[in-house]
């Protein structure tokens, strides 16, 4: 018996406009609102709404036997709220249909887990709050961008109310261990580690982008075969799929809806495949051993290091200079500023600074609008400079107010 857990990942970044040197200190609107709006409304129309409907239909048809999970970043939710509120309603409908789980994430799909534990906790809680507000669920299973994982990160999420985390099936994580089983964290055994099956996930994504002919309507049969053909002792198949891949899913040429209908039908008919949510797996399946990952690794690049995010000097410089501001930010309470702070942490900024052609550009949710990684870096640092100036201003004002108050009291 194979247990499949299907996770659909959705993330949308706030893009920066061409923020120039001359804007520093003069203009603090950083975002390309038009581009954001166009992309979000397009995606909502061509992908999120129609595909949600397909899923809703399937959930109702196979009540309790078909299950899915969603991993939606906080910025994506904010963006739906701003530009496509009906997408949120559609997810609410799915949620109330049952058998749908929402995963925990960092609010801005950020790299904060590599920077600071306190800020990490804040981001995860901020995201958890949003999920609870919209879908009435407390997320229990955590997913980091690029499936960045280390023993420390795994241990840490327990304090944030999570009891499981995803990791990539790379040799840095698993060594020679079986990728189809459940593991636990090396420091805290209460935290389970779910392993992503990237081979099958990739296969599904290619199936979805294929053009199809009438004689060969879809790859559902092959897909079921592939899953059945996995070694006997690989029991869990955790699939994380980028929701954006199903763009134009109603397009008859691609017939993605047909693929999913047939796949789920065939899988459940075979009686050797069942669906489960990540939480159910962590509750019902026994973890076999611990995985030991001392240094953080990601699954995104071919090298499985942090290259797509922090591989070159520009990315490292931007990252260090951003989190150098953390103590000041923790003192600050101004809403607008904290919003900009959260958006500065979006990992896509770092992706677009990547000079590594084998990874950066191929990231599924990379909607980079820059001509080059250098331009991306320049714009980012300009925004960061302006942000830092505003932060200093606000802190000086706060200190002044405090001193005046103390003086009055004396």
């Amino acid at each position: 018996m194979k247990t499949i857990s299907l996770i659909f990942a959705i993330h949308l970044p706030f893009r920066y406009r061409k923020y120039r040197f001359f804007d520093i200190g003069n203009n603090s609107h950083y975002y390309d609102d038009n581009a954001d709006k166009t992309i979000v409304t397009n995606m909502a129309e061509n992908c999120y709404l129609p595909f949600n409907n397909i899923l809703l239909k399937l959930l109702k048809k196979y009540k309790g036997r078909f299950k899915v999970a969603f991993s939606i970043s906080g910025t994506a939710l904010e963006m739906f709220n701003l530009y496509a509120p009906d997408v949120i309603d559609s997810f609410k409908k799915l949620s109330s249909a049952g058998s749908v789980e929402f995963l925990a994430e960092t609010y801005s799909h950020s790299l904060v887990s590599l920077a600071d534990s306190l800020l990490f906790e804040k981001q995860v809680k901020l995201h958890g709050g949003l999920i609870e507000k919209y879908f009435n669920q407390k997320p229990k299973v955590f997913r980091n961008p690029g499936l960045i994982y280390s023993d420390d990160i795994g241990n840490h999420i327990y304090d944030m109310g999570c009891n499981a985390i995803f990791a990539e099936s790379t040799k840095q994580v698993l060594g020679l261990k079986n990728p189809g089983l459940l593991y636990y964290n090396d420091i805290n055994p209460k935290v389970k580690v779910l392993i992503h099956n990237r081979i099958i996930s990739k296969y599904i994504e290619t199936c979805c982008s294929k053009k199809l002919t009438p004689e060969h309507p879809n790859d559902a049969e092959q897909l079921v075969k592939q899953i059945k053909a996995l070694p006997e002792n690989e029991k869990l198949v955790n699939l994380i799929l980028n929701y954006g891949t199903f763009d134009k899913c109603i397009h008859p040429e691609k017939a993605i809806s047909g693929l999913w209908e047939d796949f789920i039908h065939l899988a459940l008919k075979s009686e050797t495949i069942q669906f489960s949510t990540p939480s159910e797996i962590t509750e019902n399946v026994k973890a076999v051993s611990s995985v030991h990952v001392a240094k953080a690794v990601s699954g995104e690049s071919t090298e499985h290091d942090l290259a797509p995010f922090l591989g070159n000097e520009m990315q490292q410089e931007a990252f260090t200079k951003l989190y150098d501001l953390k103590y000041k930010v923790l003192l600050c309470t101004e809403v607008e500023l904290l919003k900009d702070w959260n958006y500065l942490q979006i990992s896509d900024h770092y992706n677009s600074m990547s000079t590594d052609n084998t990874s950066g550009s191929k990231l599924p949710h990379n909607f980079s609008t820059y001509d080059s990684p250098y331009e991306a870096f320049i714009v980012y640092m300009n925004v960061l400079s302006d942000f830092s100036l505003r932060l200093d201003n606000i802190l000086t004002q706060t200190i002044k107010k405090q001193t005046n108050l103390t003086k009055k009291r004396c």
Partner: protein
Amino acid sequence: MQLKVLMFGWEFPPHISGGLGTACQGLTKGLSVFNDIEVTFVVPKAHGDENSDLVKLIGAADIPLSNKKMKFKNSQNEIKYFKIKSHIVPYTNPDEFWKLTSLKHSGKTQFLQTDEYGRVPFTGKYGMNLIDEVFSYAMVAGKIAGEKQFDLIHAHDWMTFQAGIEAKRISGKPLIVHIHSTDFDRSGGNVNPQIYAIEREGMEYADKIVAVSEYTKLILVEKYGISAKKIQTIYNGVEPFDLRTGNEIKKGFKEKLVTFLGRVTSQKGPGYFVEAASEVLRRNNNVRFVMAGSGDMLNEMVRRAAQLKIADRFHFTGFLENHEVQSLYQMSDVYVLPSVSEPFGISVLEAAQGNVPVVVSKQSGVSEVLNNVLKVDYWDVHALADAIHALVEYPALGICMKKRAHAEVLNMNWDVPAGQLRQLYIQTCKTKHSRNK
């Protein structure tokens, strides 16, 4: 007697990529004051929006060439004009360079193309086809020289030297070539032999040579084997500052701003600026740096700034429009020109005129004419950092310098070099005339 000058240039404001166009406009404007001089200025392409009140501007692209074709086909020597391969980008307009490098250029032999009226479609830019255009330009120059009445030819920089030579060959009038920069300056020592040959041929063919500084004159003597007697140094000037332009953008932060403004190419020494910035920032937090301009070394500089971990204080603007340049001068507290080899450096005069204290490399022509600036060797990063640090930390120094430098520049408008040029024209025509007798 009125002296008619046929002048060949490659660019004219507002379509410029550097000091050459600015200097050509300044000189022709200065010359227009004299009643006995009449200048006809030829550029490859006239865009129509040039300020041509004071000078007659001709675009070579508008001159039909049809009756010239046969002649060039007969001569063995000149057929080579049709066969030059041009993979070389000798004097690149930075923005143009970006576009060109992203295209795949075919290495096919380029034939001279004309439109239905026999006109050559020039771009007047500094691209992959530059050398082709230089030779096509020479053909049109020959045509113009055959039809126009004039007494003297004046050619600015190597792109126009073939045109000057051709015009002299057709008309027999004396030729003055004007060296605004040599390939030694532009390439940082990596000289393109083809361009070197054109430069040298132009100087040898010329009756007189104008160098924009003693520094350049020395290069002509040492590297091109030209007799010092044949060369006259005429320093550039600067257009009086127009206070109405600019001032739209204010500096949005309180830190001092140190500015590098120019093409980001090895000639301009951007790397030394970045290294010096890092040294200054290590001991002083009250300063920001900006690198304004574009070029083939820009990405390397961005990467280096990140490597040195100064990117939060070191900014990049990319290519700037004219009004933005003015704003930048007004925002700046220190202007730095760390060129490895700078024939003159008009931008330094502009900075001084805008009341910005200047640090300039000793390897520049402008350091010969300005006393109230800090001068350092371009390679001495410590000295450069020290100078910048002093200007940022000890405001009295900057106040003193900028006041005096401003006074120095007040006398350096284009009337002075134009007057010297007029003298040279008259003298050259006389010598030629008496020799002919």
